[in-house]
């Protein structure tokens, strides 16, 4: 790298918009998990579906790949909620650190 490039790079500013989009991609990928032979994305959409289901009888719902999977709603809800909040907390910490950058 020549001197001009080094000066230009040293003056570079942190791109908050782009970094925010990358964080979204990073943490959305971490919301994925396997349960009862299906693949799921932890989050409010899945949890909203599970709240409509019977808390006692097994229910059949579609997983990420549109395969029907028999699950116990409260078990899947608990796992989804736990992963969702764990990753959202990590997302928040990283987002706050990024916001301090210039």
């Amino acid at each position, binding site marked *: 790298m020549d001197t001009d490039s080094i000066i230009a790079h040293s003056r570079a500013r942190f*791109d908050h918009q782009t970094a925010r*989009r*990358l964080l979204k*991609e*990073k943490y959305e990928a971490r919301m994925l998990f396997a349960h009862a*032979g299906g693949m799921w994305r932890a989050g409010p959409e899945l949890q909203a579906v599970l709240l409509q289901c019977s808390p006692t009888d097994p229910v059949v719902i579609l997983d990420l790949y549109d395969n029907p999977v028999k699950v116990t709603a409260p078990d899947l809800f608990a796992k989804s909620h736990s992963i969702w909040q764990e990753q959202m907390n990590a997302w928040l910490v990283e987002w706050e650190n990024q916001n301090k950058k210039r």
Partner: protein
Amino acid sequence: MVGGMGKPKQKTLTRGVLIFAFNNEHTDYLAMAAWSAENIRKHLGLPVAVVTEAGYNGGDRAFDRVITAAPASGGTRYFEDYQATVSWHNAGRTDAYSLTPWDETLVLDADYVVDSDNLNRVWDSKANFMCYKNAFDISTGEFMHGLNRFGQYDMPMWWATVMMFRKSNTAQYIFDCMNMVKNNWQHYRDLYGISKSTYRNDFALSIALGIVSGHTGVVDEIPGTLLSVMPETVLTKDELGYNINFADSAGKQKYISFSNVDFHAMGKRHLEAIIASN
């Protein structure tokens, strides 16, 4: 039956990563693969097999297995970061199914940087073949629309950069089909209206997945996006993670830093510098 009242021993499935690494006049893909193998062991905890030219003795113990094969040239390609046209020994990837020593294999490009345990999630899926569908440019924060389609008819593209497969009929059909496309490349170029003559695994894979899925477009993809760093951005590494410097659309110099993120380093020169300084 003699002496066998016990339960038959259940075969344990083997699992590992396969990397193709054939050096050319500009890039030391073997060094890249060795560095990648270290990252893979650290983050995924998986053994790594390399497919490379005969003559490599594996004395540096970088790889768990060394598989030799003849380099299969895909032609030449212009690499923006080298500002040169280089030979591209990429065509052997279609033999991954027959070359792999594992029952469950993750095929990675040598320039795919593993910096998290994210890829271990693919083993939880029941799919026999998975790959990424959408590539995402880290420096723009946008999907790479121009590269996520191919050919005159704007066909959907699947990326061969990261492929997971299990020994199965489905996976074998896909690799056989990729071989058919590779062996009849001119025909498929004409059929799909692909302007560039250079053979690309991504195109062969996309065509093969189209054929094997009965042109339904229903393919099990690795959830998430193939994060990519373009050749024109400057990639560096420090103790906290990776940084990229780039000019935004207004020409202003910007940077972002990230860690615990896997990505495809499309600019080989910057990755080589990171490996050399490691």
